[in-house]
């Protein structure tokens, strides 16, 4: 079945049965595709019968650039991939290089990294909630979420000077010592945050219209999710209880107590509930973290010039969007030989085709929103 694209217009093709199948182009510029994503939908009337994603509009060749930078020079580049959750990207990369170098970050650094990463998870989920609710038509949660996110970004700014692309961590630990009021700020944020999440839930969770727009939409069964390689909250909402923080703990996660929310049906509503609960669990981790930040150095024994022994390593973390993996091959020089970034958004986006079949056009926007993709990560 040929797919012809005619630059934003409409193609009407007659199928075998004589019914008209229209190809509708949700172009790269669209308020709800969360970036430059192009989705070619095949419609039978209002119903979607097939789709094709065209990506690459934000491809910057990050993996190629990595081969021409030193390990430390490449660290700011990873922030720009999932720009909504830059701290997680940085954590993944630094931990992978540390594994490659076979050094370990000191305990103090690990705990502070955990706290900042969990704050970043909350910030990322808040942004997701705001934009997802906006796509479905609820205009107010966006502003409330941005208000909370503002608090977190202020903490980041006080810590490392940047709000969005933070480059917060260094290979071997941290560069900046935790500023004096970090614990107080985090505590103040976390104390008020639970009530805020209750507020968002009161607006949406029991709302008849919200439930009607999200329940039963975009169902992904557990088998389909595993087959499509989906990870993160999408996988957990489909019923698979798997979180890298529990399965293969990294940073300081093995010291903290938290639970992994799982859904049952794998629909949009479950994904919403899972992410809301994840925000609460992240807050719990933060509170546990600041109770006891060990004293000590913040940077491990890493020289100025990093020359890892030849070999390769794969390490992944539980980013807010899914499993963010780094595969770094070293040939013994100061520049990596190959850096491969496993983008959770790309692999989650692959499942989009399966999820939107049979739905109405109006649901496509909701399903794209529920996958929580960031095009910077999809295209790198």
């Amino acid at each position, binding site marked *: 079945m040929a797919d012809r694209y005619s630059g934003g217009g409409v193609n009407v093709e007659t199928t075998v049965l004589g019914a008209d199948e229209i190809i509708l182009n949700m172009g790269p510029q669209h308020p709800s595709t969360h970036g430059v994503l192009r989705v070619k939908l095949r419609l039978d009337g209002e119903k979607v019968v097939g789709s094709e994603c065209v990506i690459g509009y934000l491809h910057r060749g990050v993996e*190629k650039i990595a081969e021409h930078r030193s390990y430390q020079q490449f660290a700011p580049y990873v922030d720009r991939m999932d720009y909504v959750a830059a701290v997680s990207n940085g954590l993944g990369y630094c931990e992978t290089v540390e594994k490659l170098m076979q050094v370990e970050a000191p305990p103090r650094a690990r705990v502070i990294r955990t706290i900042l990463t969990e704050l970043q998870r909350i910030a990322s989920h808040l942004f997701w909630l705001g934009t997802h609710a906006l796509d479905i038509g609820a205009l107010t949660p966006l502003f409330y979420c941005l208000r909370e996110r503002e608090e977190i970004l202020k903490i980041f700014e006080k810590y490392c000077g940047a709000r969005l692309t933070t480059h917060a961590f260094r290979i071997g630990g941290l560069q900046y010592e935790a500023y004096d009021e970090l614990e107080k700020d985090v505590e103040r944020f976390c104390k008020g945050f639970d009530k805020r999440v209750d507020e968002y839930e009161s607006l949406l969770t029991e709302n008849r219209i919200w439930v009607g727009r999200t329940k039963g939409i975009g169902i992904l069964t557990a088998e389909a999710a595993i087959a499509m390689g989906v990870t993160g909250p999408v996988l957990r909402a489909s019923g698979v209880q*798997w979180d890298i923080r529990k399965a293969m703990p990294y940073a300081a996660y093995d010291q903290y107590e938290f639970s992994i929310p799982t859904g049952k049906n794998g629909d949009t509503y479950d994904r919403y509930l899972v992410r809301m609960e994840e925000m609460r669990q992240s807050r719990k981790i933060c509170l546990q973290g600041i109770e006891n930040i060990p004293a000590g150095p913040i940077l491990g024994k890493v020289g100025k010039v990093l020359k890892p022994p030849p070999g390769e390593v*794969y390490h992944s973390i539980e980013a807010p969007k899914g499993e963010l993996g780094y*595969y770094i091959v070293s040939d013994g020089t100061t520049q990596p030989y190959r850096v491969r970034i*496993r983008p959770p958004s790309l692999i989650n986006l692959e499942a989009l085709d399966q999820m939107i079949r049979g739905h109405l056009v109006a649901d496509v926007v909701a399903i794209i929103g529920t996958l929580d993709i960031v095009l910077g990560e999809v295209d790198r």
Partner: protein
Amino acid sequence: MPLDNELVKRYKARFGGGIVEAWLDRKQAILVVAADRLLEIARYSRDEEGFDLLVDLTAVDWPKREKRFDLVLFLYSFPKNERLRIKALLGENEPVASVESIWPTANWLEREVYDMFGIVFEGHSNLKRLLLPEEWQGYPLRKDYDILQQDEAWVRENLGIESGQ
């Protein structure tokens, strides 16, 4: 360092010469297999060994080697909570079987490898470029593709400018 645990023994018992090498690098298991037996090894991994998640599929270019490409599959098993890396060595124009029929997630992953390296996957349902425009010439992640290089003809024709640099 070379690896010879239970898992490797089972693979070697099943596939014999198909398993070329097995070693442990920084505590991570790597299995090098023959490229022509990749599909059956993949099926065995998913069905018998329980590696139901294909985490990632990528390639590394070693231009000085005779078989220049390293096709790398990252597998994960939910029941065993174990990771495994499978590598296959491929020559320059050597096609390899697609594992899309085993793990559907390989669809886009293989397309990206094709896009960036030029490795052809036989049996893939839709092997065209993923990130770059379809008419782009050249395979950027190969080591002989310069970092400042671009498909001049495509840029001139489609963007109307001399160069993106």
